[in-house]
Protein backbone atom coordinates (compact mmCIF):
# COMPACT_ATOMS: atom_id res chain seq x y z
CA UNK A 1 0.00 0.00 0.00
CA UNK A 2 2.78 2.37 1.04
CA UNK A 3 4.76 1.51 -2.09
CA UNK A 4 1.71 2.23 -4.22
CA UNK A 5 1.31 5.59 -2.50
CA UNK A 6 4.96 6.46 -3.02
CA UNK A 7 4.78 5.43 -6.67
CA UNK A 8 1.66 7.51 -7.19
CA UNK A 9 3.34 10.52 -5.54
CA UNK A 10 6.48 10.08 -7.66
CA UNK A 11 4.34 9.82 -10.77
CA UNK A 12 2.49 13.01 -9.86
CA UNK A 13 5.78 14.82 -9.23
CA UNK A 14 7.15 13.67 -12.60
CA UNK A 15 3.91 14.73 -14.26
CA UNK A 16 4.16 18.19 -12.72
CA UNK A 17 7.85 18.43 -13.59
CA UNK A 18 7.16 17.79 -17.27
CA UNK A 19 3.63 19.02 -17.89
CA UNK A 20 2.95 21.89 -15.50
CA UNK A 21 1.63 24.76 -17.64
CA UNK A 22 4.01 27.63 -18.31
CA UNK A 23 3.67 30.97 -20.06
CA UNK A 24 4.01 30.34 -23.81
CA UNK A 25 6.23 33.42 -24.11
CA UNK A 26 9.07 31.40 -22.57
CA UNK A 27 9.01 29.09 -25.58
CA UNK A 28 8.81 32.17 -27.79
CA UNK A 29 11.96 33.59 -26.18
CA UNK A 30 13.76 30.27 -26.74
CA UNK A 31 12.56 30.11 -30.34
CA UNK A 32 13.54 33.71 -31.16
CA UNK A 33 17.01 33.38 -29.66
CA UNK A 34 17.48 30.03 -31.43
CA UNK A 35 16.55 31.61 -34.76
CA UNK A 36 19.08 34.40 -34.26
CA UNK A 37 21.84 31.98 -33.20
CA UNK A 38 21.10 29.77 -36.22
CA UNK A 39 21.24 32.78 -38.54
CA UNK A 40 24.62 33.75 -37.06
CA UNK A 41 25.95 30.24 -37.75
CA UNK A 42 24.72 30.30 -41.36
CA UNK A 43 26.49 33.66 -41.83
CA UNK A 44 29.65 32.30 -40.17
CA UNK A 45 29.65 29.21 -42.41
CA UNK A 46 28.96 31.09 -45.65
CA UNK A 47 32.62 31.90 -46.53
CA UNK A 48 33.58 28.26 -45.82
CA UNK A 49 30.77 26.61 -47.77
CA UNK A 50 32.91 25.50 -50.72
CA UNK A 51 35.67 24.14 -48.49
CA UNK A 52 33.35 22.26 -46.14
CA UNK A 53 30.26 21.27 -48.09
CA UNK A 54 31.05 21.06 -51.81
CA UNK A 55 32.19 18.03 -53.79
CA UNK A 56 35.48 19.73 -54.68
CA UNK A 57 36.06 20.92 -51.11
CA UNK A 58 38.24 19.43 -48.38
CA UNK A 59 35.81 16.94 -46.87
CA UNK A 60 34.97 13.53 -48.25
CA UNK A 61 31.31 12.67 -47.73
CA UNK A 62 30.12 9.86 -45.48
CA UNK A 63 26.72 8.21 -45.88
CA UNK A 64 24.14 10.54 -44.41
CA UNK A 65 20.57 9.62 -43.42
CA UNK A 66 18.10 10.46 -46.19
CA UNK A 67 16.40 13.19 -44.16
CA UNK A 68 19.47 15.43 -43.98
CA UNK A 69 19.42 18.12 -46.67
CA UNK A 70 23.17 18.13 -47.36
CA UNK A 71 22.96 14.49 -48.42
CA UNK A 72 21.31 15.67 -51.60
CA UNK A 73 23.45 18.64 -52.58
CA UNK A 74 27.17 19.13 -53.09
CA UNK A 75 27.57 21.58 -55.98
CA UNK A 76 28.45 25.18 -55.21
CA UNK A 77 25.19 26.54 -56.61
CA UNK A 78 23.04 24.04 -54.73
CA UNK A 79 24.92 24.46 -51.44
CA UNK A 80 24.67 28.25 -51.76
CA UNK A 81 20.94 28.02 -52.49
CA UNK A 82 20.44 25.68 -49.54
CA UNK A 83 22.31 28.03 -47.21
CA UNK A 84 20.30 31.04 -48.38
CA UNK A 85 17.12 29.04 -47.74
CA UNK A 86 18.42 28.10 -44.29
CA UNK A 87 19.23 31.74 -43.53
CA UNK A 88 15.65 32.54 -44.49
CA UNK A 89 14.28 29.77 -42.28
CA UNK A 90 16.43 31.06 -39.41
CA UNK A 91 14.74 34.47 -39.76
CA UNK A 92 11.35 32.70 -39.96
CA UNK A 93 12.19 30.82 -36.77
CA UNK A 94 13.15 34.05 -35.01
CA UNK A 95 9.92 35.83 -35.97
CA UNK A 96 7.73 32.74 -35.71
CA UNK A 97 6.64 32.35 -39.31
CA UNK A 98 5.63 28.80 -40.30
CA UNK A 99 7.30 28.00 -37.00
CA UNK A 100 7.14 24.21 -37.02
CA UNK A 101 8.50 23.89 -40.55
CA UNK A 102 11.20 26.53 -39.97
CA UNK A 103 12.36 24.90 -36.74
CA UNK A 104 12.46 21.49 -38.43
CA UNK A 105 14.55 22.99 -41.24
CA UNK A 106 17.01 24.55 -38.78
CA UNK A 107 17.38 21.32 -36.83
CA UNK A 108 17.93 19.21 -39.96
CA UNK A 109 20.37 21.77 -41.31
CA UNK A 110 22.38 21.80 -38.06
CA UNK A 111 22.35 18.00 -38.00
CA UNK A 112 23.46 17.74 -41.63
CA UNK A 113 26.29 20.30 -41.67
CA UNK A 114 27.60 18.82 -38.40
CA UNK A 115 27.66 15.39 -40.03
CA UNK A 116 29.23 16.47 -43.33
CA UNK A 117 31.80 18.73 -41.69
CA UNK A 118 32.37 16.81 -38.46
CA UNK A 119 36.14 17.54 -38.41
CA UNK A 120 35.24 21.24 -38.32
CA UNK A 121 32.39 20.85 -35.85
CA UNK A 122 32.34 23.05 -32.76
CA UNK A 123 30.48 22.92 -29.45
CA UNK A 124 27.99 25.51 -30.61
CA UNK A 125 27.04 23.40 -33.64
CA UNK A 126 26.03 20.66 -31.22
CA UNK A 127 24.02 23.21 -29.22
CA UNK A 128 22.21 24.32 -32.39
CA UNK A 129 21.31 20.72 -33.20
CA UNK A 130 20.19 19.82 -29.68
CA UNK A 131 18.10 22.96 -29.15
CA UNK A 132 16.53 22.46 -32.58
CA UNK A 133 15.44 18.94 -31.71
CA UNK A 134 13.98 19.99 -28.35
CA UNK A 135 12.03 22.83 -30.00
CA UNK A 136 10.79 20.52 -32.71
CA UNK A 137 9.14 18.20 -30.19
CA UNK A 138 7.87 21.09 -28.04
CA UNK A 139 4.22 22.22 -28.03
CA UNK A 140 3.05 24.52 -30.80
CA UNK A 141 3.09 28.11 -29.59
CA UNK A 142 2.01 31.32 -31.25
CA UNK A 143 3.30 33.93 -28.80
CA UNK A 144 5.45 36.65 -30.35
CA UNK A 145 4.98 35.18 -33.79
CA UNK A 146 3.82 36.11 -37.27
CA UNK A 147 1.91 32.81 -37.18
CA UNK A 148 -0.42 34.34 -34.56
CA UNK A 149 -1.43 37.04 -37.06
CA UNK A 150 -1.84 34.56 -39.89
CA UNK A 151 -3.49 31.66 -38.10
CA UNK A 152 -4.85 33.17 -34.88
CA UNK A 153 -3.44 33.27 -31.36
CA UNK A 154 -2.44 30.06 -29.62
CA UNK A 155 -2.83 29.16 -25.95
CA UNK A 156 -1.28 31.50 -23.38
CA UNK A 157 -0.03 28.56 -21.37
CA UNK A 158 1.45 25.29 -22.58
CA UNK A 159 3.11 22.25 -20.97
CA UNK A 160 6.75 22.79 -20.13
CA UNK A 161 8.26 19.44 -21.19
CA UNK A 162 10.19 20.96 -24.11
CA UNK A 163 11.79 23.48 -21.78
CA UNK A 164 12.68 20.66 -19.39
CA UNK A 165 14.61 18.93 -22.19
CA UNK A 166 16.58 22.14 -22.74
CA UNK A 167 17.15 22.68 -19.02
CA UNK A 168 18.42 19.13 -18.68
CA UNK A 169 20.77 19.69 -21.62
CA UNK A 170 22.16 22.83 -20.01
CA UNK A 171 22.83 20.92 -16.80
CA UNK A 172 24.66 18.21 -18.79
CA UNK A 173 26.82 20.76 -20.63
CA UNK A 174 28.05 22.29 -17.38
CA UNK A 175 28.33 19.03 -15.46
CA UNK A 176 30.46 17.39 -18.14
CA UNK A 177 32.71 20.38 -18.69
CA UNK A 178 33.33 20.82 -14.95
CA UNK A 179 33.98 17.07 -14.61
CA UNK A 180 36.64 17.32 -17.33
CA UNK A 181 38.21 20.58 -16.14
CA UNK A 182 38.53 19.91 -12.43
CA UNK A 183 41.44 17.40 -12.65
CA UNK A 184 43.43 19.70 -14.97
CA UNK A 185 46.46 21.25 -13.22
CA UNK A 186 46.15 24.58 -15.07
CA UNK A 187 42.55 25.08 -13.97
CA UNK A 188 43.52 24.11 -10.44
CA UNK A 189 46.50 26.44 -10.12
CA UNK A 190 44.61 29.29 -11.78
CA UNK A 191 46.98 29.65 -14.75
CA UNK A 192 44.40 28.56 -17.30
CA UNK A 193 43.13 32.05 -18.06
CA UNK A 194 46.64 33.46 -18.56
CA UNK A 195 47.29 30.88 -21.28
CA UNK A 196 43.84 31.38 -22.75
CA UNK A 197 44.36 35.14 -23.03
CA UNK A 198 47.67 34.61 -24.83
CA UNK A 199 46.20 32.05 -27.22
CA UNK A 200 44.60 31.96 -30.65
CA UNK A 201 41.19 32.29 -28.96
CA UNK A 202 41.97 35.62 -27.31
CA UNK A 203 40.95 38.94 -28.80
CA UNK A 204 44.21 40.47 -27.53
CA UNK A 205 46.97 37.86 -27.18
CA UNK A 206 49.86 39.50 -25.36
CA UNK A 207 52.61 38.90 -22.80
CA UNK A 208 50.91 41.49 -20.58
CA UNK A 209 48.52 38.86 -19.23
CA UNK A 210 51.43 37.15 -17.45
CA UNK A 211 51.73 40.24 -15.23
CA UNK A 212 48.06 39.92 -14.29
CA UNK A 213 48.56 36.57 -12.57
CA UNK A 214 46.22 37.16 -9.61
CA UNK A 215 43.40 38.54 -11.73
CA UNK A 216 43.82 35.63 -14.17
CA UNK A 217 43.75 33.11 -11.31
CA UNK A 218 40.55 34.66 -9.95
CA UNK A 219 39.06 34.61 -13.45
CA UNK A 220 39.99 30.91 -13.87
CA UNK A 221 38.53 29.86 -10.53
CA UNK A 222 35.57 32.21 -10.99
CA UNK A 223 34.73 30.53 -14.31
CA UNK A 224 34.87 27.10 -12.69
CA UNK A 225 32.73 28.32 -9.80
CA UNK A 226 30.15 29.76 -12.19
CA UNK A 227 30.07 26.62 -14.34
CA UNK A 228 29.55 24.53 -11.21
CA UNK A 229 26.88 26.69 -9.60
CA UNK A 230 24.87 28.03 -12.57
CA UNK A 231 22.78 24.85 -13.08
CA UNK A 232 22.18 24.51 -9.34
CA UNK A 233 21.05 28.14 -9.09
CA UNK A 234 18.85 27.86 -12.18
CA UNK A 235 17.03 24.81 -10.83
CA UNK A 236 16.50 26.48 -7.43
CA UNK A 237 13.39 28.67 -7.81
CA UNK A 238 14.55 31.37 -5.37
CA UNK A 239 18.05 31.58 -6.90
CA UNK A 240 16.98 31.23 -10.55
CA UNK A 241 17.60 34.88 -11.49
CA UNK A 242 21.01 34.73 -9.85
CA UNK A 243 21.77 31.77 -12.15
CA UNK A 244 20.70 33.80 -15.18
CA UNK A 245 22.94 36.70 -14.10
CA UNK A 246 25.77 34.18 -13.58
CA UNK A 247 25.25 32.97 -17.15
CA UNK A 248 25.29 36.54 -18.47
CA UNK A 249 28.54 37.18 -16.59
CA UNK A 250 30.21 33.96 -17.78
CA UNK A 251 29.10 33.98 -21.40
CA UNK A 252 29.20 37.75 -21.74
CA UNK A 253 32.81 37.57 -20.54
CA UNK A 254 33.59 34.83 -23.09
CA UNK A 255 31.97 36.86 -25.89
CA UNK A 256 33.94 40.01 -24.99
CA UNK A 257 37.34 38.44 -24.32
CA UNK A 258 37.49 35.68 -26.92
CA UNK A 259 36.90 34.89 -30.56
CA UNK A 260 34.34 32.21 -29.69
CA UNK A 261 31.42 34.49 -28.91
CA UNK A 262 29.25 32.23 -31.10
CA UNK A 263 29.22 29.75 -28.25
CA UNK A 264 27.80 32.38 -25.92
CA UNK A 265 25.12 33.25 -28.49
CA UNK A 266 24.13 29.58 -28.83
CA UNK A 267 23.82 29.22 -25.04
CA UNK A 268 21.13 31.92 -24.92
CA UNK A 269 18.21 29.59 -25.87
CA UNK A 270 19.23 27.18 -23.08
CA UNK A 271 19.17 30.00 -20.53
CA UNK A 272 15.91 31.35 -21.97
CA UNK A 273 14.35 27.96 -21.09
CA UNK A 274 14.61 28.99 -17.42
CA UNK A 275 12.59 32.20 -17.80
CA UNK A 276 9.14 32.47 -16.23
CA UNK A 277 6.09 34.68 -16.67
CA UNK A 278 7.32 36.86 -13.77
CA UNK A 279 10.43 37.81 -15.76
CA UNK A 280 8.30 39.14 -18.62
CA UNK A 281 6.00 40.97 -16.20
CA UNK A 282 9.02 42.50 -14.46
CA UNK A 283 10.48 43.73 -17.76
CA UNK A 284 7.17 45.00 -19.12
CA UNK A 285 5.99 46.75 -15.96
CA UNK A 286 9.30 48.58 -15.46
CA UNK A 287 8.78 51.35 -18.03
CA UNK A 288 5.21 51.87 -16.77
CA UNK A 289 6.45 52.27 -13.18
CA UNK A 290 9.21 54.62 -14.26
CA UNK A 291 6.68 56.75 -16.17
CA UNK A 292 4.37 56.81 -13.15
CA UNK A 293 7.20 57.95 -10.86
CA UNK A 294 8.23 60.67 -13.30
Amino acid sequence: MRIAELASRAFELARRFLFEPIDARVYAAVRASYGLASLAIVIELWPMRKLLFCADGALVRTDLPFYLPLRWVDSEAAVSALMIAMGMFAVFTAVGLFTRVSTAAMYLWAFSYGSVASPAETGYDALARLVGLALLVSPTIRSWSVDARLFGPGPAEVPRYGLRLLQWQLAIVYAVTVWLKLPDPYWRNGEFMTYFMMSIFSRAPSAVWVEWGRAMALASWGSLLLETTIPILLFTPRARRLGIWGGILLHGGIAIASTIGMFSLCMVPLFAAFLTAEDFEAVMSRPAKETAVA
Partner: protein
Amino acid sequence: MREGLLGAFCVYHMGASLFANMPPTTAFGGELRAPFETYIAYAGLKQAWTMFDTIPYFKSVHPVLVARYRSGREVELGPMLPGLKPYRHLTRLTALFVRFTWPEGDNAWFARGYLQRVCGLVAGAVAPGEERPSAIGLRLDVERLRSIPEVRRAGSISYTTHEFSPVTASCE
Protein backbone atom coordinates in the same frame (compact mmCIF):
# COMPACT_ATOMS: atom_id res chain seq x y z
CA MET B 1 -2.44 8.53 -22.65
CA ARG B 2 -0.78 11.29 -24.73
CA GLU B 3 0.91 12.65 -21.61
CA GLY B 4 2.16 9.17 -20.75
CA LEU B 5 3.74 8.69 -24.16
CA LEU B 6 5.24 12.17 -24.19
CA GLY B 7 6.53 11.68 -20.66
CA ALA B 8 8.15 8.37 -21.61
CA PHE B 9 9.77 10.02 -24.64
CA CYS B 10 11.11 12.88 -22.49
CA VAL B 11 12.62 10.48 -19.95
CA TYR B 12 14.18 8.43 -22.77
CA HIS B 13 15.53 11.59 -24.46
CA MET B 14 17.02 12.79 -21.18
CA GLY B 15 18.65 9.40 -20.67
CA ALA B 16 20.05 9.48 -24.19
CA SER B 17 21.43 13.01 -23.68
CA LEU B 18 23.13 11.85 -20.52
CA PHE B 19 24.59 8.62 -21.87
CA ALA B 20 25.71 10.32 -25.09
CA ASN B 21 28.42 11.76 -22.84
CA MET B 22 29.44 8.44 -21.29
CA PRO B 23 32.89 7.41 -22.55
CA PRO B 24 33.15 3.81 -23.83
CA THR B 25 36.22 3.27 -21.62
CA THR B 26 34.34 2.72 -18.34
CA ALA B 27 33.89 -0.75 -16.82
CA PHE B 28 30.44 -0.79 -18.40
CA GLY B 29 31.89 -0.43 -21.89
CA GLY B 30 29.05 0.47 -24.21
CA GLU B 31 26.38 -1.34 -22.14
CA LEU B 32 24.80 1.73 -20.56
CA ARG B 33 24.72 3.57 -23.85
CA ALA B 34 23.46 0.64 -25.91
CA PRO B 35 19.68 1.23 -25.42
CA PHE B 36 20.14 4.79 -26.71
CA GLU B 37 22.73 4.23 -29.44
CA THR B 38 20.35 4.24 -32.41
CA TYR B 39 18.42 7.24 -31.15
CA ILE B 40 21.65 9.17 -30.47
CA ALA B 41 22.86 8.45 -34.02
CA TYR B 42 19.63 9.12 -35.92
CA ALA B 43 18.39 12.09 -33.89
CA GLY B 44 21.83 13.74 -33.74
CA LEU B 45 22.32 13.68 -29.98
CA LYS B 46 26.07 13.16 -30.32
CA GLN B 47 27.82 15.64 -28.06
CA ALA B 48 31.24 16.28 -26.51
CA TRP B 49 31.73 19.12 -24.04
CA THR B 50 35.51 18.89 -23.93
CA MET B 51 35.80 22.65 -24.38
CA PHE B 52 39.04 23.89 -22.88
CA ASP B 53 39.50 20.98 -20.52
CA THR B 54 43.12 22.11 -20.50
CA ILE B 55 45.03 25.14 -21.77
CA PRO B 56 45.15 26.05 -25.45
CA TYR B 57 48.64 25.51 -26.88
CA PHE B 58 48.81 27.87 -29.84
CA LYS B 59 48.93 31.57 -30.56
CA SER B 60 48.31 30.90 -34.23
CA VAL B 61 48.25 28.07 -36.75
CA HIS B 62 48.94 28.18 -40.45
CA PRO B 63 48.38 25.00 -42.49
CA VAL B 64 50.35 24.33 -45.66
CA LEU B 65 50.18 21.39 -48.05
CA VAL B 66 53.50 19.91 -49.11
CA ALA B 67 53.84 18.08 -52.43
CA ARG B 68 56.85 15.76 -52.43
CA TYR B 69 58.56 14.58 -55.62
CA ARG B 70 60.79 11.59 -56.31
CA SER B 71 63.64 13.98 -57.04
CA GLY B 72 63.48 15.15 -53.41
CA ARG B 73 61.93 18.47 -54.38
CA GLU B 74 59.16 19.81 -52.15
CA VAL B 75 56.56 22.33 -53.22
CA GLU B 76 54.23 24.18 -50.85
CA LEU B 77 50.56 24.50 -51.80
CA GLY B 78 47.67 26.40 -50.28
CA PRO B 79 45.34 24.14 -48.23
CA MET B 80 42.03 25.75 -49.17
CA LEU B 81 39.93 23.74 -51.61
CA PRO B 82 38.73 24.20 -54.23
CA GLY B 83 41.69 25.79 -55.97
CA LEU B 84 44.51 25.16 -53.46
CA LYS B 85 44.24 28.75 -52.28
CA PRO B 86 46.36 30.08 -49.41
CA TYR B 87 45.07 29.66 -45.87
CA ARG B 88 42.76 32.36 -44.58
CA HIS B 89 42.27 32.24 -40.83
CA LEU B 90 38.78 31.63 -39.52
CA THR B 91 38.32 30.31 -35.97
CA ARG B 92 36.42 27.21 -37.11
CA LEU B 93 39.21 26.26 -39.52
CA THR B 94 41.68 26.09 -36.63
CA ALA B 95 39.73 23.07 -35.36
CA LEU B 96 39.68 21.48 -38.82
CA PHE B 97 43.41 21.67 -39.51
CA VAL B 98 44.47 20.87 -35.94
CA ARG B 99 42.30 17.74 -36.13
CA PHE B 100 43.89 16.84 -39.48
CA THR B 101 47.39 17.31 -38.03
CA TRP B 102 46.78 15.22 -34.91
CA PRO B 103 43.94 13.00 -36.17
CA GLU B 104 41.96 10.83 -33.81
CA GLY B 105 39.08 8.50 -34.69
CA ASP B 106 37.26 9.37 -37.93
CA ASN B 107 39.44 12.43 -38.50
CA ALA B 108 42.29 10.27 -39.87
CA TRP B 109 39.88 9.01 -42.54
CA PHE B 110 38.77 12.55 -43.38
CA ALA B 111 42.39 13.76 -43.51
CA ARG B 112 43.36 10.94 -45.88
CA GLY B 113 40.39 11.72 -48.12
CA TYR B 114 41.37 15.40 -48.18
CA LEU B 115 44.98 14.68 -49.11
CA GLN B 116 43.98 12.14 -51.76
CA ARG B 117 41.69 14.72 -53.31
CA VAL B 118 44.62 17.16 -53.40
CA CYS B 119 46.77 14.45 -55.04
CA GLY B 120 44.20 14.03 -57.78
CA LEU B 121 43.98 17.77 -58.27
CA VAL B 122 47.75 18.30 -58.49
CA ALA B 123 48.33 15.25 -60.68
CA GLY B 124 45.55 16.38 -63.02
CA ALA B 125 47.16 19.79 -63.44
CA VAL B 126 50.57 18.40 -64.42
CA ALA B 127 51.44 18.96 -68.06
CA PRO B 128 52.58 15.93 -70.12
CA GLY B 129 56.24 15.23 -69.49
CA GLU B 130 56.28 17.14 -66.20
CA GLU B 131 57.08 15.38 -62.93
CA ARG B 132 54.10 14.29 -60.83
CA PRO B 133 54.28 14.51 -57.04
CA SER B 134 54.79 11.18 -55.30
CA ALA B 135 52.94 12.17 -52.13
CA ILE B 136 51.07 14.99 -50.47
CA GLY B 137 51.36 15.82 -46.78
CA LEU B 138 49.99 18.45 -44.42
CA ARG B 139 52.27 20.72 -42.39
CA LEU B 140 50.97 22.98 -39.65
CA ASP B 141 53.16 26.00 -38.97
CA VAL B 142 52.40 26.74 -35.37
CA GLU B 143 53.17 29.59 -33.02
CA ARG B 144 53.28 27.51 -29.88
CA LEU B 145 52.71 29.20 -26.51
CA ARG B 146 55.64 29.37 -24.09
CA SER B 147 55.16 28.51 -20.43
CA ILE B 148 54.53 31.47 -18.10
CA PRO B 149 58.09 31.48 -16.67
CA GLU B 150 59.49 31.39 -20.23
CA VAL B 151 57.28 34.31 -21.27
CA ARG B 152 58.71 36.30 -18.36
CA ARG B 153 62.27 35.37 -19.38
CA ALA B 154 61.95 35.74 -23.15
CA GLY B 155 59.43 38.58 -23.27
CA SER B 156 57.58 36.88 -26.12
CA ILE B 157 54.63 34.53 -25.76
CA SER B 158 55.32 32.01 -28.52
CA TYR B 159 57.86 30.26 -30.71
CA THR B 160 57.44 28.71 -34.14
CA THR B 161 57.35 24.96 -34.80
CA HIS B 162 56.44 22.94 -37.87
CA GLU B 163 54.21 19.96 -37.19
CA PHE B 164 53.50 17.27 -39.76
CA SER B 165 50.34 15.23 -39.93
CA PRO B 166 51.07 11.47 -39.78
CA VAL B 167 48.52 11.08 -42.57
CA THR B 168 49.87 11.42 -46.11
CA ALA B 169 48.46 10.49 -49.49
CA SER B 170 50.41 8.65 -52.11
CA CYS B 171 49.92 10.11 -55.59
CA GLU B 172 51.41 7.14 -57.44
